[in-house]
Each structure stands twice: as C-alpha cells, then as structure tokens.
C-alpha cells in the first residue's frame, strides 16, 4: 500500500514514521501540509511533533492546512488515518475523533517507555495485534492528557472505541487511562504514544510498535 506521511512546519517524527511505514511493508509517500492532493495514497499518518509551534492550541492551526481538507474528506470515505501524538491532537481538533488533549496534569513533559494494553484489535491500525496484547513503546508529550465529557467517555468505552489504555502508571492525567481512541468506523485512530519509534530491535524498546504499520496489510487482504 502507499502510505502518506504529512510533514507540517514543526513536525518531528515524520521521517521515523516514513521508515516505520517501509519496515511495515509499505511504500512511504511524503506529503506536505500545503498540498491540495494526497498523491494517490491508500492511508495517511499524521506524525508527532510541534506543528505550527503548538501556537493557539496543539493542532489547532494544522487542522486548517490545505492537506487536512483532503485528509478529512478521505477519512470520511473510510481511508485509514493514524495520528500519533501531535497527529492525535490534530485529529481531535479536526473533530475526526472526539475529545481533546490538554496539558499533562503534573505540568511536566514526560518521556518514558510506556506499557499499554491494546483494547481494540479490529481497527485498520491495530488488527495485527491480539485483543488485550500488552506492548511497550515510547511516550513523550507535554500535552497528552485525554479529556472528554462523561457521556462521550461512556460511549467510547461502550462501543469499544478505546484503542489503547495506559498500564502501570497514568503518565499524563488522561481520563480513564485512555492512550488512544478510534472513530465509529475504525479507520481513524489517534494514539499519544509513539509506535513508529518501536519498529526495530536496534533502537528503542523493541518492535512492539510495528503492528500499527503491518495492520494495514491485514486490513487490505482481509
């Protein structure tokens, strides 16, 4: 599959995401925030970083970039979209995912190897995992506290739309230990920790994150 990785001004993890896409067995296509087309890609990754310097709110300016108009339209038609960290913030600002991400409750930037439980293994980005699988990948954020009103949280849990939950510690004050969520259709996933940093034995915490990138193939051939 052709997987687009969007670079915004201030993106940090776009090159790592491209590499993870390739290791996951796909072709990585670099997309620019000012692009008005998606260059024929089959899926899109919105990478981590500090797009537009996190001005106004994290993801608030990126959400209105030309390429996001295309991403939002394609996501509505079912194209798989994965937002990691800043990408998750952009997806929430775009209203492709419910809720929002606010400053960590302890007010400090957090960078740690984080254990997670995959709670929904039927999304376009998690089908390579077993439901309940426990993985360890890097987490690094200053504004990763997932918040939503109680009704939305109940609905997310009731519909199985919590994709991943923090284990051991809640690193940023996220409500109900939520690390990632998906939309009704399961094609759009937002995740605060970074699977793209855990795709090779040589670096990082191992290869626990690779499943997010190999899942696309599982979805394509299902």
């Amino acid at each position: 599959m052709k997987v687009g990785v969007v670079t915004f001004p201030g993106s940090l993890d776009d090159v790592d995401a491209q590499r993870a896409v390739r290791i996951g067995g796909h072709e990585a296509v670099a997309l620019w925030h000012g692009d008005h087309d998606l260059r024929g890609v089959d899926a899109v990754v919105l990478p981590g970083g500090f797009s537009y310097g996190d001005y106004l709110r994290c993801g608030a300016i990126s959400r209105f970039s030309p390429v996001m108009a295309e991403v939002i339209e394609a996501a509505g038609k079912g194209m798989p979209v994965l937002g990691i960290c800043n990408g998750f913030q952009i997806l929430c600002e775009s209203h492709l995912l419910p809720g929002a991400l606010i400053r960590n409750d302890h007010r400090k930037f957090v960078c740690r190897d984080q254990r997670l439980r995959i709670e929904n293994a039927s999304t376009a980005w998690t089908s390579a995992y077993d439901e309940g699988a426990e993985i360890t990948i890097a987490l690094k954020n200053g504004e990763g506290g997932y918040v939503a009103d109680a009704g939305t949280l109940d609905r997310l849990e009731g519909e199985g739309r919590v994709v991943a939950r923090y284990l051991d510690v809640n690193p940023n004050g996220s409500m109900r230990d939520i690390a990632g969520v998906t939309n009704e259709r399961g094609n759009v996933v937002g995740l605060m920790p970074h699977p793209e940093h855990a795709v090779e034995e040589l670096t990082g915490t191992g290869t626990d994150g690779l499943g997010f990138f190999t899942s696309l193939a599982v979805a394509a051939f299902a």
Partner: protein
Amino acid sequence: MPVVVVDVMPKPEILDPQGKAVQGALPRLGFSGVSDVRQGKRFELTVDGEVTEAVLEQVRQMAETLLSNPVIENFTVRVEETV
C-alpha cells in the same frame, strides 16, 4: 478602529494545570486568600468599520471554529470602546 475582544476560558470541569501552577506560586510570593486560579486567553480583533451585529456574528464563528476548542473551552465576545 473598534476592537472586538474574545475571551477564551477552559470549561469549569476541565483541569487547568497552568492556573494551578499560578495558584501554587502566589502563596510563595506572600499573596494569600486566592482559592483558585483559571488561566485563559484574550484575543483583540481590530475590525474595519462599524461593529454591526453581522460583524459580531462573524467573530462568534471565528471563536467557535478557530479561537476556541468548544470541547474544552468557553468563549465570550464583546466590543471594547477605544479612544
């Protein structure tokens, strides 16, 4: 030129870590009697011409789409008299 002010505040039920940090700093500086601090944003929009109801409506739309995130923030719009 008239200025339209948009104040954006975190919703009461949303944790405000920045406000908490400010609140924590006050007693250390010798200020007492403040039981809570909430920190928001103030936008000053200088508009061309008269501030009509149509202009205010447009500012409300700006506040709703860009200046605030309605999931976590409330906003108010008012006209500031300028000299």
